[in-house]
C-alpha cells in the first residue's frame, strides 16, 4: 500500500545506534527481553533510582525490528541507556514493578508501537482512542492515517518526499561506510 511515510532510502543507516558518533551522554548497554528484567533490578540495586524515560524505535528493515530504550539516572549525574532489541510480535517483561513510572510509558509504547509488556497491570491504549486500529508510530503506518492516505490534498508541509539530493559527506559518509564494512564482515 503506498504510504506518505517513505521508508529509509538507500544510502541511509539501517542500525543507527550501531554507528553512532562518540557522544558522551550515557553509558550504553544492549540487553535482550530475556535479560532485561534482571539487569534492571541489578541497576536499581546499584543506585539507579530513577527511570528517566522508556521509549521505542521502529527500525523497519533491521532484525530485530523494534528497540525499546530505557534511560536510567543515578543521582547526581550518571546516566545509563539500555537498548533492548524486540522482534516483531515478541513480548517484553514490564519494569513497572521496579520503577512505578514505567506504567504509562509502557502503555504509550504499546499504544503507538504495539509492543506487549508481560506483567503490566493495565495495558491499554493511552494516547489514541480506545477503539483505534493500528499502531501509529510504526514506520509502515501512514502519517496521515489510513483514512486520509489517498487524499488528493497535497502535503506542502511534509518533507518525507524530498530526498537529500546531495550525496553524504564528512561524518555521515564515514558512518555509512563503517556500516557497510560491518555488514561485509558478518
Amino acid at each position, binding site marked *: 500500500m503506498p504510504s506518505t511515510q517513505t521508508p529509509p532510502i538507500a544510502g541511509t543507516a539501517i542500525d543507527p545506534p550501531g554507528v553512532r*558518533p562518540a557522544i558522551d551522554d550515557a553509558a550504553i548497554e544492549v540487553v535482550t527481553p530475556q535479560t532485561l528484567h534482571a539487569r534492571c533490578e541489578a541497576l536499581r540495586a546499584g543506585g539507579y533510582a530513577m527511570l528517566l524515560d522508556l521509549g521505542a524505535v521502529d527500525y523497519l528493515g533491521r532484525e530485530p525490528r523494534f528497540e525499546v530504550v530505557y534511560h536510567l539516572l543515578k543521582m547526581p549525574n550518571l546516566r545509563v541507556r539500555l537498548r533492548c532489541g524486540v522482534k516483531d510480535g515478541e513480548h517484553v517483561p514490564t519494569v513497572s514493578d521496579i520503577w512505578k513510572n514505567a506504567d504509562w510509558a509502557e502503555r504509550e509504547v504499546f499504544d503507538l508501537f504495539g509492543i506487549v509488556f508481560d506483567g503490566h497491570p493495565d495495558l491499554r491504549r493511552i494516547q489514541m482512542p*480506545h477503539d483505534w486500529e493500528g499502531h501509529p508510530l510504526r514506520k509502515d503506518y501512514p502519517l496521515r492515517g489510513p483514512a486520509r492516505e489517498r487524499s488528493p490534498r497535497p502535503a506542502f508541509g511534509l518533507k*518525507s518526499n*524530498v*530526498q537529500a539530493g546531495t550525496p553524504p559527506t564528512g561524518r555521515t559518509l564515514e558512518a*555509512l561506510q563503517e556500516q557497510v564494512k560491518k555488514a561485509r564482515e558478518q
Partner: protein
Amino acid sequence: MSLSPTPLTPEIVSHEGNAMVLSMGPQHPSTHGVLQIMLEIEGESVIKAEPEIGYLHTGIEKNMENLFWSHGQTNAERMDYLAPSSNALCYVLAVEQLLGITGEIPERAKHIRVLNAELTRIASHCVWLGTHAIDLGAISVFFYCFDLRENILDLQEAAGGARMHPNYLRVGGVNGDLPAGYLERVDALISKFPGRMKELRGLLQANPIFQDRTIDVGILSADEATQWGVTGPALRGSGVAYDVRKAFPYSGYEQYTFDVPTRTEGDAYARFLVRLDEMEESIKIVAQAREKLRTAGPYAIDDPKIFAPPKETIALSMEALIHHFKIVSESFRVPPGDVYQSVEGPRGELGYYIVSNGENRPYRVRTRPASLYNLQALKGIAPGNLIADLVVMIGSLDPVFGEVDR
C-alpha cells in the same frame, strides 16, 4: 472517529462500597488543560484517581519524522507550549550533538540561548502561578502574573517574530542577532522584577487561606518522587536537589552562578515556594547573561552547509545563494546515530532521544516528557484527599498537556 468515550473497564473502576465514579474533565476549568480524571469518590474524599490522557495527542513525534532537521524545532516548541524556547533549545542541542558541532557554537549564541531559556522559564512560572492561584480563588494574582508575562512575550516577539512560538533558536545558533533596543528592555525588566516578585509574594505567601489550602496537601516524599520519575520543582520541593543545569550543564550554564532552591516538606506549599525562588534565580541568570552579551560576536556557526548565510549576502555571493537554496529545499544531512539530550525545563527534565539514519530528516524523536511523569505521580498522592485538594495538587505539579500527550 469514535463517538463513544473510554469504557469504564474493571481496571479503571474497581470500587467497593459506596464509591461513586466521577469523570473530572476533559473539559474542566481547573485541570490546566485537557485532562480527564476518573475519580472514585466517597462523599468529597477521593479513593482512587486515574488520570486519562491523550485528549491532546497531536502525533508530533511522527510529524517530526516528516520535517527537515532545520524545521524540527517548530514542532518541538509546540509541545510544552508555556516554555517554547526551552523545548527548542533541547532539540537544537541534541541535533548539534549528532552533527558534532557542539563545540563550535559561538559564545554569543550560547548566551542568547541561556537568556531566552531563563526568560521563558519565568514566563512559564507566571502562567503556573496565575492559573494555580485562580483555581484557588485568588483572581487578582492571575492579572498580576499575566501582566509580568507580557514583558517577556514582548521580548520574544522582538527577537523571534512571534509572542509564543518565536522559532528563534535554530540548529547552529540563533536566527539573527538581538534587535536594537532588546538589551535595554531586558534591563528594564531586570529593574522592575524585584518589585513585581515582592507583590506576588505579598499576595500569596503569607495568605492564611492560601496556606490552609496548600500546606500539607499532596505530600510527595523524596523516595516516592524518585520512584515516580518526578523531576523539576516538584522533585526539589521534596528535598532532592537534582537540576539538569547543574548535573549535565549545557549551552554554557557552567559559566553562570545560581542556586538551586530546594525544600524538604514535599507539599504543595513547598513546591510553590521553590518555583517562586526559581523565578528569582532565573532573573539573576538573566542579568548575568545580559552582562555577557555586551561583547559583540557571531550569532551562529560559520558553516554554510548547516546554517544558512545571512540573507543580505545572497545577491552578492554565488556560494551563499547556492547554500541558501540547498538548505531551504532539502536541508542538511545529520550523521547516523542516537543521542539523549536533556534540559531543565520549567516542569523538570525535558529530554529528546533523537535517532538519525543519515538522512535530511529525523528518524525518530522520542520526547522525555517532564509533565507526563509529574502527572503520573497524581495517582500516588491523590487517594485520601478531598476533591478540592486534587485541584491544588494538579496545580502544584504543573502539567502541560502539549507535553503529556504530544
